């Protein structure tokens, strides 16, 4: 079991509400996912050709200042580093390949959770309330957010196996369910040079869809390929720089409820998590149909 959470604010003047509205939904999904939680928030666009890297350090007392100094010294490039406990947001114009290689060599205990112009990722083990407090989720501002509460069923409870998973740039995915063929998907993707960070089934789904999009598919087309390729149960929620997308498998065993008003689109696994949103009583409430693709533009 797991909880999925999505929130997209439709009006730019409401972007400051993103964290305030999202946190009670996340905490409402604690019973479905008490062991880990995480989110991908689509916030301010990074300037020029710079990219945002969300980093996670295994060591809770990691010296981020040392990483900053070392980065400047080795790569000759200035960075902006926003530290939030054992996460940090690094902004640089250097390309992912170079940053990853350098980190791997010099700071093997620091992991790249996401790369993008807009997206930032925070995920960890603990209850949703603990994680929301640790990383100040309440203060998040932005156009949309994809979040998850995890009850692990198929791989270990570790921060890197918490959701969301990311691949490429500004693409994230959370999953409620179990996919039965993640290993055959891996065996298909690895010879194409696609690297996996964990043994988690959701990571295989995330990398499969991102690979399809790099091959030229639209998100919708990639999901059509997903219906044919993915074997198992899933409700998937995805975020791109300007979209929020939701699908359920043909059997629709894993729940989802959508509440939409003129101000927001809110998604949770169960309605009670949405019950306290403003004007939810006037919202259009529905359950997504199996194998139908729902996309909202930010």
């Amino acid at each position, binding site marked *: 079991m797991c909880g999925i959470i999505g929130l997209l604010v439709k009006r730019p003047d409401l972007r400051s509400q993103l964290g305030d509205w999202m946190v009670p939904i996340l905490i409402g999904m604690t019973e479905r996912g008490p062991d880990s939680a995480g989110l991908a928030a689509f916030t301010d666009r990074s300037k020029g050709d710079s990219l945002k890297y969300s980093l996670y350090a295994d060591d809770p007392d990691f010296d981020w200042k040392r990483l900053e100094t070392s980065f400047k010294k080795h790569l000759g490039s200035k960075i902006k580093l926003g530290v939030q406990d054992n996460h940090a947001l690094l902004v640089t114009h250097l390309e992912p390949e170079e940053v990853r290689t350098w980190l791997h060599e010099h700071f093997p205990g620091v992991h790249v959770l996401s790369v993008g112009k807009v997206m930032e990722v925070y995920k960890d083990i603990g209850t949703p309330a603990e994680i929301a407090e640790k990383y100040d989720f309440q203060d998040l501002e932005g156009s949309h957010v994809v979040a998850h509460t995890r009850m692990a069923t198929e791989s270990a409870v570790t921060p890197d196996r918490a959701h969301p998973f990311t691949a490429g740039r500004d693409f994230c995915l959370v999953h409620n369910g179990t996919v039965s063929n993640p290993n055959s998907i891996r065996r298909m993707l690895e010879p194409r040079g696609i690297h996996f960070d964990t043994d988690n089934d959701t990571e295989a789904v995330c990398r499969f869809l991102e690979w399809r999009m790099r091959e030229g598919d639209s998100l919708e087309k990639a999901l059509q390929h997903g219906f044919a390729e993915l074997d198992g149960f899933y409700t998937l929620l995805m975020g791109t720089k300007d979209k929020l997308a939701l699908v359920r498998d*043909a*059997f629709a065993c894993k729940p989802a409820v959508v509440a939409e008003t003129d101000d927001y689109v809110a998604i949770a696994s169960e*309605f*009670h998590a949405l019950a306290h949103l403003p004007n939810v009583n006037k919202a259009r409430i529905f359950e997504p149909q199996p194998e139908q693709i729902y996309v909202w533009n930010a």
Partner: protein
Amino acid sequence: MERIDLAKTSLRELNQFLHHEVRKKKIKHVEVINPDGAHSIAAGVDAPVKIDIRGHTGYYCAGMNKQAEITVHGNAGPGVAENMMSGLVHVKGFASVSAGASGHGGTLIIDGDASLRCGISMKGIDIVVGGNVGNFSAFMAQAGTLVVCGDAGDHLGDSLYEAVIYVRGKVKSFGADAREEPMTKADEKKLAELLDKAGLKYKPKEFKRIASAKSLYNWNADANQEY
């Protein structure tokens, strides 16, 4: 009438009240406000009491109901009225998956759509759906009636036993062993009663009857597992 506010009272207190106080004091009407999608609201009630739930409910609302007349003035989550024995459950909005699953008796009325697996393994319950039903509805349904005023999804009535399905709209596909049969006078009478009970104005003649061809009742070694 007793009014219970789920914003102030715990679910356990509400259900204990419905199980014990209502019977002891012969209370006839209970209103539940602020349900806010909580699970198992009014599950296991066994008393002739009218219960109005003002809002949306979560999983298993009115499960195992006996005697009570329960109205959800909103949408119901998965498994509404599952394993109902008798009484009436009326959902004014839509119902999620597995509505009326394994129901033995009583009537379940859903004004809106019902999602997948509506009436799965039903054992005598009557279910009337004002809108559409999702895939695999009435899967392995053993007894009772499923009335669908809208359309039905894929695999309707797969591996059906003695339950009968009436559909007014289109059926996307039949499940194994389900087939359309001619309507009889008895079908029209039963259907008229159920539509009347649900307050729906449709005419029985607008519906088609779907029942089991019973070809799966006995093992057929020559079928080579191809059903």
